[in-house]
């Protein structure tokens, strides 16, 4: 714990772990070494094979004429590697970080000094990421998610894993993400201000909530539309060969990219979802997943903006569901590799979904939520609590109009959609960013309107298309009032500004 900042008023600058350059540079070193070996081997083999088997290796021309040449080459390689290593070492030497009561700062660069900082009261989440090689060496990366940037603004790489955990625990406690804690305002110099918060004392208390068994994960990947499409293609292959032996192989070759990409996607899903665990921590929830790259993310309950539960068509016989969330500060997922970031449950049963919902929406009444979710996932038509599109919407939306609908309780708004793949989004009233009502010409003729509820970027979108115009207007008006009312109540612990104003 030596690298932890002292609680004194003058925060120190720390260096990241000395093994960092090795970890960061290993790939480049490997590439260089690989290229050199490849060239040497190539020349060697060419010369060897060109001369035939009978000639011993010492005899062939390039080696003999170029004894000096080879030494020079080896020397160049060594020099390049040394320069590279020196550069990496120097960059490590000049990379320092500092954790003050208000900021996390990273200074780097030798000629071009760069300083990046993240204001702690703007930090939305602190995640620990453990790629494969650093994990072998007991290292971890600490990532700070900032609200406005949309991507990780600052990341400390690498610290030892206990260091990273301790620093995260301390910062999360100081941020007050778990409740009203000591404010992040600057203490008067020299004064011992930081009283230990209760969650800091209890430390990294994790209580396991659920885990996804690997067979179920693999099953969920296999029970997807692309897997079925692939199976059909594979089954069609012999038929194609039988029908036309000449074009058959060409068709197979055309399918190959699909096969490869499906394999890659499936592999990534299994690799990322492997040993997925959801843990309960004082700040909220923590997910941990991954086979080689183990990632650990803490999602403070107050930062969850919207929860989406969905069930693809093929998961229906198994009773599987997926839960994803919009988290403030995470931004849109940058492709498949990031998709797990916003996933609280990659595949699970309905009771598990209830568990997750209960944790993700601590403000909502539980029994109410379960009934709402059941209706949201399986309901059809206007009976029950959901208000659906009127019958005349069938002209615009023949299949789904009986499913699209919304239901509002005192705390949350639930929106359901999808006939084949069922989806339900649950949005706490106080998390609505803005509301829009829109109407196109056809909708105008049918007296329909769409309502869009804007949430922070993420996998969950909350929109109710083709509502009766009156319903739509009422929903938008009610949502505006709800949001305004709930906002005043909810401006408590989840709001970084409040404790600061209190202590100032």
């Amino acid at each position: 714990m030596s690298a932890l900042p002292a609680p004194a008023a003058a925060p120190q600058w720390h260096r990241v772990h000395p093994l960092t350059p090795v970890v960061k540079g290993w790939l480049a070193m490997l590439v260089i070494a690989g290229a050199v070996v490849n060239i040497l081997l190539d020349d060697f083999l060419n010369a060897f094979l060109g001369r035939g088997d009978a000639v011993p290796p010492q005899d062939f021309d390039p080696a003999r004429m170029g004894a000096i040449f080879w030494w020079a080459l080896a020397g160049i390689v060594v020099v390049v590697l040394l320069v590279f290593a020196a550069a990496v070492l120097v960059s490590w030497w000049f990379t320092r970080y500092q954790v003050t009561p208000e900021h996390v700062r990273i200074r780097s660069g030798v000629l071009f000094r760069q300083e990046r900082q993240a204001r702690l009261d703007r930090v939305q989440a602190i995640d620990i990421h453990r790629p494969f090689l650093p994990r072998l060496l007991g290292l971890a990366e600490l990532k700070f998610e900032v609200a406005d940037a949309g991507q990780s603004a600052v990341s400390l790489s690498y610290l030892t894993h206990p260091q990273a955990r301790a620093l995260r625990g301390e910062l999360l406690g100081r941020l007050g993400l778990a409740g009203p804690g000591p404010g992040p305002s600057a203490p008067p110099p020299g004064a011992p201000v930081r009283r230990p918060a209760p969650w800091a004392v209890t430390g990294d208390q994790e209580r396991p909530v659920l885990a996804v068994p690997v067979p179920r994960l693999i099953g969920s990947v296999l029970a997807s539309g692309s897997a079925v499409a692939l199976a059909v293609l594979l089954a069609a292959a012999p038929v194609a060969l039988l029908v036309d032996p000449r074009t058959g192989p060409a068709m197979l070759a055309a399918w190959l990219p699909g096969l490869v990409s499906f394999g890659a996607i499936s592999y990534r899903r299994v690799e990322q979802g492997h040993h997925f665990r959801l843990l309960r921590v004082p700040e909220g929830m923590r997910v941990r997943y991954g086979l080689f790259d183990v990632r650990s993310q803490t999602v403070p309950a107050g930062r969850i903006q919207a929860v989406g539960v969905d069930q693809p068509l093929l998961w229906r016989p198994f009773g599987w569901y997926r839960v994803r969330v919009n988290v403030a500060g995470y931004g849109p997922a940058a492709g498949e590799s990031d998709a797990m970031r916003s996933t609280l449950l990659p595949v699970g049963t309905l009771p598990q979904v209830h568990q997750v919902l209960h944790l993700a929406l601590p403000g909502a009444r539980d029994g109410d939520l379960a009934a709402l979710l059941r209706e949201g996932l399986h309901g059809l038509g206007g009976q029950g609590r959901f208000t659906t599109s009127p019958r005349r919407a069938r002209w615009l939306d023949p299949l789904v109009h009986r499913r699209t609908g919304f239901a509002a309780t005192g705390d949350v708004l639930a929106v359901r959609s999808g006939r084949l793949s069922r989806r339900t989004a649950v949005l706490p009233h106080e998390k609505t960013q803005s509301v829009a009502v829109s109407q196109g010409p056809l909708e105008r003729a049918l007296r329909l309107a769409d309502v869009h509820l804007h949430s922070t970027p993420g996998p969950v979108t909350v929109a109710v298309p083709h509502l009766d115009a009156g319903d739509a207007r009422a929903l938008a008006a009610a949502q505006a009032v709800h949001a305004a009312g709930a906002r005043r109540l909810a401006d408590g612990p989840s709001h970084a500004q409040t404790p600061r104003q209190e202590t100032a």
Partner: protein
Amino acid sequence: MPERSAHGPVGGPGAGTPGDRVPLSNPAIDPEGLAWTRVSPRHLTVVVLSTLLSTLFWLAALGWPAVLAATGVWAGAPLGLLLLPPAAALAAGLLSVLLAPRRVRAIGYAERGEDLLVRRGLLYQRVTVIPYGRMQYVDVSVSPLQRSFGLATVKLHTAAVGSHAEIPGVEHAEASRLRERLTARGEALLAGL
């Protein structure tokens, strides 16, 4: 709202020229009893000018083969066929110019106690409600064409991507008043994420 700009409310008395038959206040999506503030009438000039400019650009971009054919440089070219793309560009430009007055009149905004409403669109109409406490920042931008008419565009950003609300064609004084007022209201009602 005490500080409403001098322009009449959307759809209210004097909202449009006589004979304007488009109901600018759509009872289906507009909140009841709300008086919209309209953007500056000079915004129409800006829209028409920029439409003409872009039409000219498209005419030039799509029309040069026809010019070559007509002047005989490109002998044997199907002139009738080559005239089609520039004609389409011209038609689209003319349609936009014709629709511009009504489109501009369909833009409105309203400040309420807790939120700001922005309305856009003629064929596809949209009313966006943005609570003041949700605004992350307010942008005021001025394009060269707008500058020569003393207008600006006020853009509101929340943490959500979907709620990009834009009020184009606001007079400079009104734009800075809006910015100050929105910022002040936003700070007073600031809500955490």
